[in-house]
């Protein structure tokens, strides 16, 4: 039984909701890291902004980039948005980040149970793995599963105020591709500039 059978959420609507009014974040503009693949496209489609750092590679690294950033910027809020496949590749980072206990870092995992980018092969979350349960077992004090839009709306302020892990079940339907900038040096430079970091 595919546990995603009843998931109907549109990924673009979900990410647009998570990234609505990003200035309405304690400490200033929300800092966002997205995982390789569809979440990068989703965040770009919601509106490109310098405080978005899109991964186009480095699979499995999104949450750890978020950790380094959260430690470096303790007064700002960091939100990692990634997919089930990217999270599965970095499962150890669930334990590392829980142990590091940073209050200003949250993660939303868009779970369609598939490696959509490479031909919709089933991922482990469609085959029995429960990422929220793993997060709890790693020591995340708050780990939730969300399956409808009102709950996504309720999640938005919490992701900006708590250290929260959230699985959001989304439809595996393909959406129109949107490609944000992919030059990593450009993305890095403009992100640092937006934070007021002086160039070396």
């Amino acid at each position, binding site marked *: 039984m595919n546990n995603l059978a009843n998931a109907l959420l549109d990924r673009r609507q979900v990410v647009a909701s998570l990234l609505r009014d990003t200035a309405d974040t304690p400490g200033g503009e929300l800092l966002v890291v997205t995982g390789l693949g569809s979440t990068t496209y989703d965040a770009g489609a919601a509106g490109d902004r310098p405080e978005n*750092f899109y991964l186009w590679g*480095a699979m499995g690294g999104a949450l*750890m980039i*978020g950790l*380094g*950033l959260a*430690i470096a910027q303790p007064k700002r809020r960091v939100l990692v948005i990634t997919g089930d496949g990217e999270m599965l590749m970095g499962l150890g980072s669930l334990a*590392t980040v829980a142990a590091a206990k940073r209050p200003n870092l949250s993660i939303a995992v868009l779970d369609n149970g598939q490696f959509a980018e490479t031909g919709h092969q089933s991922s482990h979350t469609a085959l029995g793995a429960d990422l929220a349960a793993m997060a709890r077992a790693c020591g995340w004090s708050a780990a939730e599963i969300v399956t409808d839009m009102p709950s996504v709306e309720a999640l938005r302020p919490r992701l900006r105020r708590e250290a929260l892990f959230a699985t959001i079940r989304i439809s595996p339907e393909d959406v129109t591709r949107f490609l944000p900038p992919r030059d990593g040096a450009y993305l890095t430079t403009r992100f640092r500039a937006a934070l007021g970091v002086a160039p070396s």
Partner: protein
Amino acid sequence: MTTEPWQDGVYAALKDAGVRQVGYVPDAGHSRLIDRSHADPEMTAVVLTTEEEGVAMAAGAHLGGSRAVLLMQSSGVGNTINMLSLPIHCRMPLFTLVTMRGEWGEFNPWQVPMGSSTGPVLQAAGVHIRRAERADEVVELVAASARLAYDCAIPVAVLLSQRLIGAKVWVK
């Protein structure tokens, strides 16, 4: 493991270079740096489950205007290879200290394959290599290599030779 004076010198060099985050997979050769990092309120030390996490953490530190170092053993270098595309493509610094196994007086044959390929693999991936053989050169080498990594925004690895660290002694 006894503490050698150069280990505190290396820690001071990291602090002087502006390092404020330490990601590590434990190794006996790094134990002094790990202990110092945890005891230092200016430093945030993060224990990793696997070495590539430290590469990604260093990228996040750079995005946030901070500096991180990755402490690992030669056997962990192989775990980092794809993640190295992150600092290299994004023109970010990466600074890592690698304690070598499988070379000087090694007891465990399982350490030899990765120890032998550590340098060539890092170089093939685009990482600049420096190697410390003697206690009297290591502090200066770390300080200069840290400048190279952070000021030029490139990946640099300092290999701390097994002769320097001391071969692990096994007692039955």
